[in-house]
């Protein structure tokens, strides 16, 4: 049995390597191998962009599906996704605040991206603090989901309100950001993102065993020594850090958090959470590479691709469940 899992992962990793290489070769300019290595070459900068893009997609592929997987297991709801806590909406709200209110201030281009990321992180941090502070009050799990839904609705309403009063260029900038068109992160941003993803993974790994302990319900979980309050905090930290950091640097990436865990459950025994966690990571990386390739070839922003792909899959899922 263990061999089968190894074989599945092996094939996915082969897929990752192939798609990574294709990803590096897709784009307007034709690059050769030496463009990537030799800094004297004309196309070195473009090669750098492509590597950054591919690396960013690897990190997104690790973070977003893992965040969705954790929330689906914790809430025992296969439709939960990283936005269920409201993180993406509040991050978008703060980015909107920044874009709309900075329209009268001249900010040099190279700082624009950083400030967008900072606003997004700030927004996510604020919501994360609120969730952690109130986590004791969330006696019932479903209350967190309702809270997240209300926060998302409120954030969306405020953004709509703001959109009335801004000039069209800012509006377009904001909308492009929500499409995930802003996935040009530079190497230092990628490094920060990588560190944040590693921190998020650390909290993820800490929550797998308690999640397994919850399988038979709260009474058994208590007899196994699972601390519900500690698990709640670890889940909030893990899923928030993972989804907020990707949202900050690459814009919101939708649907992957719901759809990839679903595929993983089809590929391997859903009860074995460690295997599911690993599968989510490798399959997430592979799928994001493929989407990145499609996005480059079609010139559509990444969220358009994930939406076109994600919605039919979720519909099929819902129909199959009935």
């Amino acid at each position, binding site marked *: 049995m*263990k061999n089968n899992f190894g074989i599945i992962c092996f094939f996915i990793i082969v897929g990752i390597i192939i798609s990574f290489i294709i990803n590096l070769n897709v784009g307007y300019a034709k690059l050769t191998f030496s463009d990537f290595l030799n800094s004297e070459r004309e196309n070195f900068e473009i090669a750098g962009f492509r590597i950054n893009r591919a690396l960013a997609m690897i990190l997104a592929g690790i973070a977003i599906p893992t965040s969705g997987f954790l929330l689906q297991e914790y809430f025992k709801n296969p439709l939960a996704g990283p936005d269920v806590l409201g993180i993406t909406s509040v991050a978008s709200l703060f980015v909107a605040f920044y874009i709309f209110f900075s329209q009268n201030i001249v900010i040099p281009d190279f700082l624009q991206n950083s400030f967008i990321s900072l606003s997004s992180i700030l927004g996510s941090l604020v919501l994360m603090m609120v969730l952690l502070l109130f986590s004791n009050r969330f006696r019932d799990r479903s209350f967190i989901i309702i809270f997240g839904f209300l926060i998302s609705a409120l954030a969306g309403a405020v953004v709509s309100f703001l959109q009335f009063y801004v000039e069209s260029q800012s509006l377009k900038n904001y909308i492009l950001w929500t499409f995930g068109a802003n996935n040009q992160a530079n190497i230092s941003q990628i490094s920060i993102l990588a560190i944040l993803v590693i921190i998020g993974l650390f909290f993820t790994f800490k929550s797998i065993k308690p999640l397994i302990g919850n*399988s038979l319900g709260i*009474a*058994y979980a208590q*007899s196994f*020594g699972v601390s519900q309050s500690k698990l709640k905090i670890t889940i909030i930290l893990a899923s928030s850090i993972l989804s907020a950091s990707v949202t900050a640097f690459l814009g919101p990436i939708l649907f992957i958090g719901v759809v990839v865990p679903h595929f993983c459950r089809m590929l391997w*025994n859903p*009860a*074995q959470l*460690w295997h599911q966690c690993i599968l989510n990571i490798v399959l997430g990386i592979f799928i994001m590479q493929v989407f990145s390739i499609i996005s480059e070839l079609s010139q559509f922003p990444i969220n358009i691709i994930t939406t076109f792909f994600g919605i039919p899959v979720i519909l099929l899922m819902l129909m199959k469940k009935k």
Partner: protein
Amino acid sequence: MSFLEIQNTSIGYSEPLISDINTSLNLGEVCLLMGNNGIGKTTLIKSILGQNPLLNGDILINNKSIRKLNPNEIASHIAIVFSKAEIPDNFTVIDLIALGKYIHYPYYFKLNKDDQHEIQDIIEKLNLKEFAHRKVTELSDGNLQKAFIGRALAQNSPFIILDEPTTHLDEENKLMILSLIRTMAKNENKLILFSSHDWRLAKEFSDKIWWLKNGKLISGISEEVILRNTELIQPKILKFSKNFHPPAIDAPKIEKEMMFSFLQKNFASDLTNFKLTFKNEKWELNLDDFYDNCHSLSEVKRSLQNLINKGTYN
């Protein structure tokens, strides 16, 4: 020194449900816990598990106070089988029994070879081999209960508590589970504490009885406890007046529990051991037989119809 010692303990929530408990149990013994619904059986079990704080006194497990043990240490001494559990959609029987090893691994990534063999042994011992790779949702009630007991066995704790393990089972499965419990105690030197309403059957498999009654715990060797408390043996007849109307047969969602709580609300006394007949223009009700023989909603409806039409339980 006994394995389990309860010293001057009161259990309950804001008010004590059972007070001044002083009793003990040893390894290799089977103890039946009995008492009416709501008297505190599950509260006592949770107090022993350390999940409910004690109002008074102390409980010692293998000479250690449960106030000083963390949940993992308690779990290494006590394994529990609850009467109700969330049945996970995707677990196979092996996955469920393997959960008995949960406390033994820091990350629970993968079981080692010895533990895997032990789980296979438990599956064979419980005659679950043909179901080993099936999902637990596909099991019959009896086999599912065996699987949960298998999980408790896999935990390797010397003390196993079972909260109403035979309540949802038919006669054959009840006997099977009760004899399994007795075998576990005698062959593997485990201490078993289990609660049951069907005390007439359960007492045949028990060495001791703990009887929760009137806020106290009466304990002793099973035969003595039964003989000393003759009201257990003689059936009680609860007489209703002619004006008593049970809930209508076609009332939506009529369930055993609703009927029971309706009766309990209207009649404050002990409702076990009652027989319903219409005699001398009065209703008399036996609830024990009523529950044991109704396995579905339609059977409940049919029996109630009989009660009202003929005046006797059928």
